[in-house]
């Protein structure tokens, strides 16, 4: 066990190296830790907006034929909810954690290009604000987060909303690509001596793959939305059938970006889970090589599955069969991770912290989302279930049950490192149970609603059998989720000032970020411990039982 962790008071927030103080220090910062926190704060701000939009939608849908919202308003809200949650919440949270943690995990002083890093963040923030400015400029975008042409073209979408959608996503997208290049170079070039790519924490592996996905996928989106803008402003007709364009080309472009995007949002959560589960099982990750390699497999395959979003388009049996095959195949490397996480817990000594509870709930919720994904790969099932509430259930089990549960686990796990103080575990457990109950009440019955024939993206619906009551249950679930977020906010605000002092390594974890103070000094490490394996801090505290020696005893596994 780690007996040497000292309990030290948090280091003052303002770094000594900085020329500025207070707010200006944050605005002018190029420190990866502060930029990481700025990303998280921006995500929290947009999460409040996107969550509020969801609550309004659930209110309108709580019973058949309600008139809480006008159809136009509803359509703007669901478009903004999806766009916000994907581009302004999930991606920034992921960039926030990656920014904060990757340099610490690899024993680096900062990212490779600190000023580019700051630029990436400010592009994200102002891109998001530009998108939201549309509300004041005549109406938010209202063609859905994937803005299918020709509905998103000038003749059918005459407000400026879609233009703001294009500009907002373009600006944040450039930031994301720059941020990913930064992370990629950092991981490749700034690892501590001894920390080979076969030894880096799995979170770093996942961020590495995510960065590759962002660099390859986002430019496709950026090219497509610029074409859409040219269509809208200069009548170029790329996606307008009347002018020789093709609405289907838009769909191909969008999902060539859009499906890798799903893994951009999922892989970092896999990484978070891969750090949390071992520490609270008191065991190393099971099958490190397989978790890492299956991620590479996902990264490659994710560029060959896009048309499974288009099975209802009528591409023909041959094309559909190909994309059904790749989509079924990608379930296998995803499943490999689930089995390895369970094997990591097997015969461990489980410590049920809030972080661990969220990680374990992730395993079940994400499996539900993954399996409903498999049902969509069986093409004729997709022909019945796509564009219904079953799909709404599927995507929320992947993005909330997966990504957000992973992020909550990460928040409870790394908050002490970032703030120097522990989050309150009692409030944490309350937050956890409210989230689990609220989330499943909200979305579980959406599966049934889809099978009942309820299409997605309707502002109201007829009183068909069962539709009213299941929608009411969903709205009640959403209210519980709303309360859960307030509990989390209370916990964060309270613990920031009054939480228990964390010390360097409150969880007795083994990766390098726990080898420095909480929060770390501006330069991160006074001295990076020697790295001879995947768990440097384990090796440090278990001389004679280092990973290397343990693995030699185990025999079967290879030396990392």
């Amino acid at each position: 066990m780690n007996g040497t962790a000292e309990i030290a008071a948090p280091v003052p927030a303002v770094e000594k190296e900085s020329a500025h103080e207070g707010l200006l220090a944050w605005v002018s910062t190029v420190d990866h830790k502060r930029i990481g926190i700025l990303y998280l704060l921006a995500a929290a701000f947009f999460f409040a907006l996107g969550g509020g939009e969801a609550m309004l939608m659930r209110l309108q849908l709580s019973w058949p034929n309600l008139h809480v919202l006008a159809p136009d308003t509803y359509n703007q809200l669901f478009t903004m909810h999806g766009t916000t949650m994907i581009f302004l919440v999930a991606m920034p949270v992921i960039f926030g954690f990656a920014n904060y943690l990757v340099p610490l995990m690899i024993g680096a002083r900062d990212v490779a290009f600190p000023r580019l890093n700051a630029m990436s963040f400010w592009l994200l923030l102002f891109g998001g604000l530009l998108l939201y400015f549309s509300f004041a400029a005549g109406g938010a975008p209202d063609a859905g987060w994937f803005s299918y042409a020709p509905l998103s073209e000038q003749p059918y979408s005459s407000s400026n909303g879609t233009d703001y959608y294009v500009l907002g996503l373009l600006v944040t997208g450039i930031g994301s690509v720059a941020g990913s290049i930064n992370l990629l170079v950092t991981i490749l070039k700034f690892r501590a001596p001894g920390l080979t790519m076969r030894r880096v924490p799995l979170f770093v592996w996942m961020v590495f793959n995510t960065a590759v996905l962002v660099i390859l996928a986002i430019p496709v989106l950026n090219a497509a939305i610029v074409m859409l803008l040219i269509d809208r402003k200069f009548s170029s007709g790329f996606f307008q059938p009347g002018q020789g364009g093709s609405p289907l080309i838009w769909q191909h472009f969008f999902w060539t970006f859009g499906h890798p995007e799903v893994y951009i949002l999922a892989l970092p959560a896999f990484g978070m889970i891969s750090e949390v589960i071992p520490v609270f099982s008191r065991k190393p990750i099971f099958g490190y090589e397989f978790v890492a390699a299956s991620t590479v497999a996902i990264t490659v395959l994710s560029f060959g599955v896009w048309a499974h979003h288009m099975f209802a388009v009528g591409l023909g049996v041959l094309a559909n069969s190909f994309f059904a095959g790749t989509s079924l195949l990608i379930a296998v490397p995803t499943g490999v991770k689930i089995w390895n996480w369970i094997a990591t817990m097997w015969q461990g000594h489980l410590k049920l912290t809030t972080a661990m509870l969220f990680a374990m709930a992730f395993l079940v919720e994400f499996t539900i989302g993954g399996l409903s994904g498999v049902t969509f790969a069986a093409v004729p099932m997709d022909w019945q279930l796509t564009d219904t509430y079953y799909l709404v259930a599927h995507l929320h089990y992947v993005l909330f049950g997966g990504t957000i549960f992973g992020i909550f686990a990460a928040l409870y796990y790394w908050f002490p490192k970032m703030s120097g103080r522990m989050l309150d575990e009692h409030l944490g457990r309350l937050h956890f149970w409210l989230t689990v109950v609220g989330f499943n009440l909200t979305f579980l019955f959406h599966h049934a609603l889809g099978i009942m024939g309820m299409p997605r993206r309707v502002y109201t619906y007829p009183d068909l059998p069962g539709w009213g009551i299941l929608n009411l249950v969903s709205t009640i679930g959403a209210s519980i989720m709303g309360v859960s977020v307030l509990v989390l906010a209370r916990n964060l605000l309270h613990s920031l000032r009054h939480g228990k002092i964390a010390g360097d390594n409150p969880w007795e974890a083994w990766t390098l970020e726990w080898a420095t103070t909480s929060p770390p000094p501006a330069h991160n490490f006074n001295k990076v411990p020697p790295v001879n394996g995947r768990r440097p801090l384990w090796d440090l505290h278990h001389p004679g039982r280092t990973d290397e020696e343990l693995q030699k005893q185990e025999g079967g596994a290879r030396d990392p």
Partner: protein
Amino acid sequence: MLYTSKAGAVGDSQRAANREDVVVCPGLPAAGVHAMSNADLHITSPPWFPVFHPGSPDAWAIQSLSGFVFAVCAVILAIVTGLVVFCLWRFRRPEKREEPPQRFGNVKLEIVWITIPLLLVAVIGIATVFTMKSMAAPASRPPDLIVRGHQWWWEVEYPQPGIVTANEIHLPAGRKWLVELEAADVIHDFWVPELARKMDMIPGLKRRMWLEADQPGVYQGQCAEFCGAQHAWMRFQVVAQSPADFSAWQAGQLQPAAIPSRAEAREGQQLFQQMTCVTCHAIDQSPGALRTAPNLAQLASRYQIAGGALANTPKQLFQWLMDPQKYKPGCKMPDLKLTDAQAHALVAYLEGTP
């Protein structure tokens, strides 16, 4: 020259047909009766789970595949959940300070949990391809029916014998019909969960699929691709009839319209001509009739108006004419600022109320 229709007579006989002759499919209590006795026709009682209530060979095929895939998924979910709960119960050691045995992996286990899922998805993939192939629609022969999606209504065309109607598809039960799908403006999606797959309707392209109902009955359909402000009220019905009833329906649709007998209906006919109605709506089957808005010929025979937002009763048609934007905000039907008397006259004309 517009003809006054015998809409009333045909409509009534059609309703009578629905009331007496149509054997509604199981779980769908006499839709016609319910519809016409209840102002809110769209609140008939279709099955709870239309996707799992197949009414055609294709829908059965999809359900069989679904049953298999859901079963596989349920087993996997049960295993994962079971293992997580077991770990929670068996390996919880809140106070234990010593570390458990450190295990790093097991290649044999990895091979097992890669191979078994691979085999499972291979089986699902093969079943998928065969099910898909069984439903592929031919491109060679002319379609029996052309359905064209508009913001936010359905244009329904029978090339033989040349009928255009809207928001309601009549077909003979037990016959496999080839349907061609098109779109007039944006992308829509044609979906009747009890009868067939869904298929996108894409402007500039023609798509084909099979549509068939084993039993006579009324089946709910709707647009499944978001298509703008009133996507929610882009619903329709498929009315499967016995071949005799279907022929009667077709004959009724082709009936030349007659001069309305009642003064109020004649006034309605005049208003229909004088107000802006005729700039968008056709009301007969003459070749080249307008297709910019629903064809209103034999309107009285239909179940719903406004894409399902209202039932087709004189009362609701009156409400609709008085303020369409109230019931379907954003739709293309303008508020015509009718007086009560004018609206009543139009209702009398369109519904052919005696």
